[in-house]
């Protein structure tokens, strides 16, 4: 009885090993199953999903206008202080003093991509950018000013 068990054990073992070999052998002879992407070469075709969280950006229209009123809600909602808002007061056309944004500073190096700033922005001034190649040689380059120099508030945004 033991002898039968011994021999059948050997054959069962060999069959189980053979099954594993068939799996790896199948992939060896099927180069079509290769799933890796050739990254720097496929830069042109590589497109991230629309929802992809690359970095926080502030879109500007063709007249160099953005929607940020400088209210500071994003700064308040950010859990780790990645956003700093430096505001200034400008005098609008009808002569009133108004709070406006001077610099919207975004620290990409501290950002955890939690999306709270974008979700909480009342004027939808911030959106996700699709850029994902963030590597730089100097950390200070990760501190970005989101509003472009000389940009103004879009008409009709309060």
């Amino acid at each position, binding site marked *: 009885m033991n002898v039968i068990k011994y021999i059948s054990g050997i054959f069962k073992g060999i069959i189980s*090993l053979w099954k594993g*070999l068939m799996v790896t*052998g199948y992939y*060896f002879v099927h180069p079509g*199953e*290769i799933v*890796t992407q050739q990254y720097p070469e496929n830069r042109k075709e590589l497109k991230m999903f629309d929802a992809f969280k690359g970095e926080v950006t502030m879109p500007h229209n063709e007249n160099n206008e953005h929607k940020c009123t400088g209210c500071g809600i994003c700064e308040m909602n950010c859990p780790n202080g990645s956003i700093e808002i430096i505001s200034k007061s400008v005098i609008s056309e009808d002569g009133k003093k108004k709070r406006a944004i001077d610099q919207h500073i975004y620290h990409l190096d501290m950002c955890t991509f939690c999306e709270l700033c974008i979700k909480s922005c009342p004027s939808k001034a911030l959106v996700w950018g699709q850029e994902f190649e963030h590597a730089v040689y100097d950390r200070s380059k990760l501190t970005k000013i989101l509003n472009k120099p000389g940009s103004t508030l879009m008409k009709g945004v309060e």
Partner: protein
Amino acid sequence: MAFSIYDLTSFNQWVDKGLNSVMSPLWATITEMAIIGVVFLLFYAVVGLFLVYAERKICGFIQCRVGPNRVGPYGIFQTIADFIKLLMKELVPINKADKFLFNLAPFIIIIASMMALAAIPFAKGIHAIDFNIGIFYILAVSSMGVIGILLAGWSSNNKYSLIGAMRSGAQIVSYELSVGLSILTACIMFGSLQLSTIVESQADCWLIFRGHLPAFIAFLIYMIAATAETNRGPFDLAEAESELTAGFHTEYSGIKFAFFFLAEYMNMFLVASIAATIFWGGWMPLHIGHWTGFNMVMDFIPPAVWYLGKTAVIIWLMMWFKWTFPRLRIDQLLTLEWKYLLPINLLNILVMALVVLMGWHF
């Protein structure tokens, strides 16, 4: 015979005569040795680099990847770049390591595999030394490598290295038996230990066909035991990177690590070429009975190609095993040897002796 067109014996004799005519016999011998030494060193480096590349490509394809593809076309220069990198790396000195043994260990491993290479018949006429005890010599010399592993593990002053080395000692000492016995099974058929005779006697039919069942079982056992001997595949307990980080060569860096690395691939080449020589007829072309036309065509393929092709197939098999199976545990490894391989092997020798005695072979 047809393959005499690829016979290099006359070329060798011509070189020998030429050297003897210009210098004394002693110097001629020394010059010949130097030439062969240089050729083998070159061969060693080329085979080592190629096998590293092949392994990475094969495991890449098995794992749904492409493998190295950056340095040169299809990444063929990848291993050369790696080798240059290893050459330039710092050799980290180890505190309280036994300096002499620590430096000696990689050389012992390299020398062991190098010496075994000398007795391998690559083709007719390309054969450094043709002993009458060729197989015995190869087995004896190649098992010297374990001394290097033990020394490396012992002298590194690292606990992981020591465990790895001790595992390796137990493993190689046990599996040496199976390698020896499975080759012995084959040698019953040949009636000789001389490698040239072994190859010649397979001219009509390779051993694996001629000896049918017992030869096939011996081949299987040899493959398992040889994989274990080279510390590869499912038997890489000595390095077991998920348990012992890198086992016996944890503390080695730079070129000394490269030596271990090269020696591993060279050992794989060695055991594969022994398997090819003994079981698959070495450089002998495939001949089928009386199919004269077929045999003629086969003869036109140079013997070196036959030899390297067979070796490559066996190496590919070993790589396939390595990239499929999980690792054994040390006690299971010894169980496999002492409870399975050894008894089957002994029985197989008996069967083989019976087959030879009764003439049941082809």
